[in-house]
């Protein structure tokens, strides 16, 4: 660890992983409710399990991004973090507020929660991913401001690398793009239009910039490839992201009440949204091929290379399948969306978070890399989660196909509940893959508890003996 203050990243990373585990548990509950609709009803209705699953996802990713920022910004800026104490206080506030919010979801009926938290004063509740009560949303803004203040002050007094500028800039973007959470017009169509400023703006825009910056940082550190080359590629990638993604938001506007020209504009521009993901693959593998060193943290390298591939599959490929208006006409609002969403979120954002954690945690614990034994556990966890997620995606795609064939494209369409019944086999496969995913996550978490660091001397001895 080059700067003592980088240490504040550790609680963020630990909390991120704990919340990730929580997310998966709720996911398994929700997935089981697809098959046994009375499971845990009425104590834990599906919508509560679902919102806990999605909200935990977002909070753990934000924790990981924040930890990444506290680790990367001081190192890139070549100066200590402005206020490690503020970062630590903010961590506890975020964690406690997040925990209280999930507890509130679980313990208080949603309408009651809205009543007691002042939703009538400024309505913000009742939208996907934005289920949080008003006080929580305000808390998120304050936490974000604290992060922005801290890293911006650090950046100002230090070296302004492109990675730092893109990372800090996109964190500002993340915060600004959250503000529409407080804008909930009474007109449902306008509300839907604005909702995507946050959701699309984050995951198909701003967060891709964060992903690029994190990946760029890891690759510079691990391969030793010249910074100028990495940073130039990074600008190209983020340029293509915004060039395709800003009007590409139109692929959410085909069938929700917006004018018809979005059908054309959204299709054309969102069709090029896979390009930055293709470039990310080329980028990371090129760095690998041009590497000047063999970094002992093979696990981190695997995450860093796996991320662009899985991100391309989930965001690029599965996204492309549902992006063109004529195709989406049949697939809109089906499990195709869930398939894309799971693979994209995991492949891009979960994996890049796990990549930075994989790289940074050993360093935060005082070593360059973990022992071979620990890395092996981590790598098994990697493959188990990756393959499980691919299975989940394929299963949900299958369920989506059933819906399209029986309910959307059919001459004599079947009703929703009947169609869901027909898709049961896919929901079983999905649940089974969800269980193996959890096992992979547990194996991955176990790797943190295996003692020892990477032993250069032993590796050299082994190499010489061979």
């Amino acid at each position, binding site marked *: 660890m080059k700067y003592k203050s980088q240490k504040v990243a550790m609680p963020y990373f630990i909390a991120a992983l704990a919340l990730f585990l929580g997310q998966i548990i709720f996911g398994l509950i929700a997935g089981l*409710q*697809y098959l*046994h*609709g*009375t499971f845990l*009803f*009425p104590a834990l*209705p*599906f*919508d*509560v399990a*679902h*919102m806990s699953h999605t909200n935990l996802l977002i909070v753990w990713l934000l924790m990981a991004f924040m930890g990444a920022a506290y680790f990367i910004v001081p190192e890139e800026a070549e100066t200590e973090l402005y206020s490690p104490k503020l970062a630590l206080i903010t961590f506890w506030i975020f964690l406690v507020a997040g925990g209280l919010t999930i507890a509130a979801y679980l313990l208080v009926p*949603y*309408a009651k929660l809205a009543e007691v938290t002042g*939703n009538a004063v400024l*309505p913000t509740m*009742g*939208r*996907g991913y934005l*289920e949080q009560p008003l006080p929580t949303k305000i808390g998120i803004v304050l936490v974000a401001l604290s992060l922005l203040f801290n890293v911006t002050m650090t950046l100002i007094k230090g070296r302004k690398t*492109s990675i730092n500028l893109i990372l800090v800039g996109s964190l500002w973007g993340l915060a600004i793009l959250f503000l529409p959470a407080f804008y909930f017009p*009474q*007109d*449902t*169509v306008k509300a*839907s*239009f604005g909702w995507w400023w946050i959701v699309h703006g984050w995951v198909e825009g701003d967060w891709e910039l964060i992903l690029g910056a994190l990946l760029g940082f890891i690759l510079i550190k691990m391969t030793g490839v010249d910074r*100028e080359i990495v*940073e*130039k590629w990074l*600008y*190209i990638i983020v*340029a293509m992201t*915004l*060039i395709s993604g*800003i*009007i590409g938001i139109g692929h959410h*506007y085909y*069938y*929700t*009440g*917006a*004018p*018809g020209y*979005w*059908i054309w504009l959204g299709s054309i521009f969102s069709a090029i949204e896979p390009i930055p993901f293709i470039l990310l693959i080329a980028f990371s593998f090129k760095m690998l091929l041009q590497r000047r060193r063999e970094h002992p943290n093979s696990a981190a390298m695997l995450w860093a290379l796996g991320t662009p591939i899985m991100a391309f599959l989930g965001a690029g490929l599965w996204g492309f399948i549902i992006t063109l208006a004529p195709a989406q*006409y049949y697939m*809109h*609002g089906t*499990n195709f*969306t*869930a398939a894309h969403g799971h693979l994209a979120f995991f492949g891009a954002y979960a994996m890049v978070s796990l990549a930075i954690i994989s790289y940074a945690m050993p360093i935060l614990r005082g070593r360059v890399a973990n022992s071979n034994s620990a890395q092996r556990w981590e790598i098994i966890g990697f493959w188990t989660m990756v393959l499980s997620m691919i299975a989940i995606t394929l299963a949900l795609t299958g369920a989506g196909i059933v819906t399209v064939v029986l*309910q*959307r*494209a059919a001459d004599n*369409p079947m*009703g*929703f*509940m009947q169609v869901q019944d027909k898709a049961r086999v896919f929901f079983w496969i999905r649940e089974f893959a969800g269980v193996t995913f959890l096992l992979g996550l547990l194996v991955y978490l176990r790797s943190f508890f295996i003692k020892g660091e990477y032993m250069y001397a032993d590796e050299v001895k082994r190499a010489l003996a061979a």
Partner: protein
Amino acid sequence: MQQVFTKAMARNIFLGGAVFFIIIYLILSYDTFQRIPERDHANKMTASVLRGKYLLDTNDCIGCHTINGEGAYFAPELANVYKRRGPDFIKSWIASQPTGIAGRRQMPNFHLSPAQLDDLVAYMQWLSNIDTNNWPPNIEG
């Protein structure tokens, strides 16, 4: 074209491209907002309809259902349910939940008064008249 493509050029394309497309998006959004009230019959958003919307939001209906394809995929599409089932069915259905049928996906009872049910149905009727470019493909949603 034999020339050197520098990091600075890439950065300028990034910044220029972002500003360029944000401007276009703002202009398109302005036009969209101008067109929406006509497409969704905003003039028919009565107080009852708005109360109904508030009920739908604060009971997190979107946590299981979809509205114009957006939401969760656990339960049926609501934007055209008014046309599919009619107001009386919808009101009695909501009031009689949960079904308690073994294994079937369950919907909670939200303890809504008859007036609230009327408001909710008014909102669903309003939803069913939005011009969504002919979506969904059929009545099943």
